[in-house]
């Protein structure tokens, strides 16, 4: 398939000799306008790739923080139509930062796969991460997405052994997302030595960049994980930064976009020091 913004960004970072900072946030949390300002703050404060979360009523692979964010977003009136609109609005100011939609299959299935791919492409979406579509179900969305010029980014996990890896990697493009542990989002970070070992293992099977997520919350962790990985994914920490400034009565104690910007600037520092850490 043709080169996407993800390929270009990953190529550029490789030349710079540092890992990518991949940031996840929940689209529409707690409302559209605030969420769009958060997305813009991500772009400004050092995120190299943005994962735009599509809320789903039944997020089976997510921990309490992202579950709650999804519910806030749905309560705020977010739909798949509005999530695509958010990407399009972001693209008005930024035509370079790659956007990856992340979520579950049912809202896409109900929207209609072909219509979704057309609209996603038009909204400036570069890649998809759909948690509940393993390679066994590639005909559903993965193969049509590749035809439409959108990367389908597959998750590899500690349970994906060497025998299975080729199947998982077969139709993957953009990058490989290594889930650092068995479990749901927001759990404690796995042993970094084991993560580095797993990244090496995956790299024996593919030339694609390997990004690591699940459990990365601090700049220090981003620096350590980034020493061996091509990218570091941070999600729950960002979602929490939003939740922390939303009072229980809906009154905000600070600007959510500013809170996210502060966190992400620190994480960006972390990934910029990652290869120095590796050299130490």
């Amino acid at each position, binding site marked *: 398939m043709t080169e996407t913004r993800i390929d270009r960004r990953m190529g550029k970072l490789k030349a710079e000799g540092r890992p990518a900072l991949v940031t996840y946030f929940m689209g529409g949390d707690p409302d559209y306008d605030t969420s769009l300002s958060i997305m813009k703050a991500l772009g400004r404060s050092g995120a190299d790739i943005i994962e735009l979360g599509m*809320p*789903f*009523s*039944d*997020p*089976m*692979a997510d*921990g309490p923080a992202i*579950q709650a964010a999804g519910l806030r977003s*749905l309560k705020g009136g977010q*739909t*798949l*139509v509005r999530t695509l609109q958010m990407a399009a609005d972001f693209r008005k100011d930024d035509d370079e930062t790659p956007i990856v939609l992340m979520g*579950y*299959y*049912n*809202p*896409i*299935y*109900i*929207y209609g796969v072909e219509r979704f791919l057309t609209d996603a492409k038009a909204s400036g979406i570069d890649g998809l991460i759909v*948690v*509940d*579509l*393993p390679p*066994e*179900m590639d005909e559903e969305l993965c193969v049509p997405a590749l035809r439409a010029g959108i990367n389908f980014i*597959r*998750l*590899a*996990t*500690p*349970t*994906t*052994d060497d025998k*299975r890896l080729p199947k*998982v990697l077969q139709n993957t493009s953009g990058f490989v997302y290594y*889930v650092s542990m*068995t*479990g*749901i989002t927001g*759990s404690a970070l796995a042993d970094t030595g084991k993560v580095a070992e797993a990244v090496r293992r995956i790299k024996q099977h593919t030339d694609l960049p390997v990004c690591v997520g699940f459990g990365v919350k601090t700049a220090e962790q981003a620096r350590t994980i980034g020493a061996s990985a091509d990218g570091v994914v941070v999600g729950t920490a960002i979602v929490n930064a939003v939740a922390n400034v939303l009072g229980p009565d809906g009154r905000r104690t600070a600007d959510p976009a500013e809170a996210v910007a502060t966190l992400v600037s620190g994480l960006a520092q972390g990934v910029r020091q990652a290869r120095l850490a590796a050299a130490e």
Partner: protein
Amino acid sequence: MNKPAMPNSFRTGPDEQGMFGIFGGRFVAETLMPLILDLEEKWNEAKTDPAFRAELQALSTFYAGRPSKLYFAEGLTRHLGGAKIYFKREDLNHTGSHKINNCLGQILLAKRMGKTRIIAETGAGQHGVASATVAARFGLPCVVYMGATDVARQSPNVFRMKLLGAEVKPVSAGHGTLKDAMNEALRDWVTNVEDTYYLIGTAAGPHPYPEMVREFQSPIGTEARAQILEQEGRLPDVIIAAVGGGSNAIGLFHPFLDDKDVRIVGIEAGGRGLDGIEHCASMNAGRPGVLHGNRTYLLQNEDGQILDGHSISAGLDYPGVGPEHSWLRDTGRVDYVPVLDDEALEAFQLCTRTEGIIPALESAHAIAHAVKIAPSMGKDEVIIVNLSGRGDKDVHTVASMMGMEI
């Protein structure tokens, strides 16, 4: 929606990808995929292994009490004045419902796979009790996820599970019902992949669960078919079962699917009526979607968000249904019709008074349909209703519906 082509036999599914037509499949996170493939391999070995079958047979006979009786409900038949009504007495099984059939099969499989920890989800608590029971019997720790709403309305079953040594974890997400319990069980499984066996209670979820649970439940239909041939010398005209996820129904239906003169009816929870959202009639008022590892009919909004639904019966309070039912609906082999909360409650009381049998509210939905159709049928015609469970667990719910305190 286009009807799928009529197959030569309705009993050959699923295909190798776990599909029944467009339904079923394996829509799970990558972390679980290797586990599901391993489960499929071990299940395929076990189901043809004579030793496995013999052990299950022995437990079914001496522990669960199979075969369950096919009972001529003479009082109810006389009261309605039409077709002869038979009950398949799954309520007489150990633990009081059909759920034990599946749990015995799966615990033997878990043991065979070397798993040391059992997790389960439950709605009414019948599957939770059956899981806790087999876990106690085989000395394995068991965690049961149960919606907080269901914990409140099924307190006797919660206590039974605790007595049996299981840990009951209330789930407060969503409406706190079966759907939310299943999400939480999947989160546990994705976290504890090495040692844990997920004992799904209904004929839904990723392949191979729908097929496997159907196989463990199909003695219901196999026995009923032989019993009615012996007792009446003929096949029934109509068979009826309640459908939540649909395990008792597929167990009764499957052995009859190719008997083309037998009319098969599945009963969905009509709740307070199909006009609003206070029902669980996914096949009458929902559309195909993807949840909990399979594609099937689901209650959902236009954005693909899953709705919670409502039923008086905790065991039917689920916005989806097993994928094979979705396929049987679209092929037209089985009719799925709704029964309202009030109709089920009335049938619950009628059955109790005319037969001296307190049925589970789930089963009362199936009885309610028999109450509707029997009077206009001939006296020589025969209906089999799956009495999937006993109603002791429901007396608090029924009392409050009737405005009484106990």
